[in-house]
């Protein structure tokens, strides 16, 4: 029994070193998912971000169809990278609304003119208040809301070209 005990410190050390190496080699995802996925979209009403395009409010999500909310900023580089994929999604029939975080009308106009404009509505979130309300950790993020107003899916970071079919599938699931 005593002989076995002398191995205890070594076992503890190896376990600890293993844990440390594992954590260094395969760091866990730094994504912070929203806890609101699976819950009702909270009440909100955002002013229009640009002239000639409606703002966004909770009431827009009671139409019985699944819609996507894209949280973005014209100042955000990954959002530019993502834009062509959003255009593609819109062309495939996914209704996309946007929320522009800490942005100005002129810069959003310029962004849409340069990179493409897949958005039906664009709400303004000048103080990031909507972002926090939704449990969104950054830009870009996309939320799929079903016809009953339940947040069904959150995509963190830019939607890459190879992820477009998956997003369409998630939207179809939410549409059922």
């Amino acid at each position: 029994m005593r002989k076995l005990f002398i191995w205890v410190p070594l076992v503890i050390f190896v376990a600890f070193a293993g844990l440390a190496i594992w954590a260094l080699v395969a760091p866990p995802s730094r994504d912070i998912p929203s806890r609101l996925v699976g819950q009702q979209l909270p009440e909100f009403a955002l002013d229009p971000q640009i002239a000639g395009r409606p703002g966004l409010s909770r009431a827009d999500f009671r139409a019985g169809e699944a819609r996507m909310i894209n949280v973005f900023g014209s100042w955000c580089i990954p959002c530019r990278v993502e834009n062509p994929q959003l255009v593609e999604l819109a062309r495939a029939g996914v209704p996309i609304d946007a929320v522009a975080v800490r942005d100005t009308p002129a810069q959003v106009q310029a962004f849409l003119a340069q990179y493409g404009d897949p958005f039906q509505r664009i709400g303004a979130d000048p103080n990031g208040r909507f972002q926090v309300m939704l449990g969104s950790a950054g830009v870009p993020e996309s939320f799929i809301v079903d016809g009953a107003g339940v947040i069904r899916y959150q995509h963190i970071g830019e939607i890459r070209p190879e992820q477009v079919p998956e997003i369409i599938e998630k939207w179809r699931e939410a549409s059922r």
Partner: protein
Amino acid sequence: MKWLAPLLLAFVAQPLAAQEAAVTSPYADRQLEDPAQEAAARDLMHSLRCITCQSQSIADSDAPMAADMRSLVRERIAEGQSPDEIRDWLVERYGAYVTFEPELDTTTWPLFAGPLLILLAVGGLAWSRIRRKGRG
């Protein structure tokens, strides 16, 4: 050399672009008039984790999102909400990640139970040794 320009641009574009995300929240860096409320807000800010930066509190971070969250905290304190209410509201959205003062729940209990168990084990070991020594 064709690859050099985009590479350089990648370094240049980011800080320039970051400047465009202007913070307009009223209380991001302005104190509340009531010192007691400001103190409560400040305490809470130091215990809330910035969502976009690594292991900084929103009080310490220069990130625009942290600034907006400071304003949110101050505005809600001024409205009469308690620090715990505000913390709970944020935890409902971001989970325990957002707070530096974790609550006791199904995932955090080892944090609290671990030291106690180790103390008990060591105490038990020491006790048995002392008793044995006393006899011998």
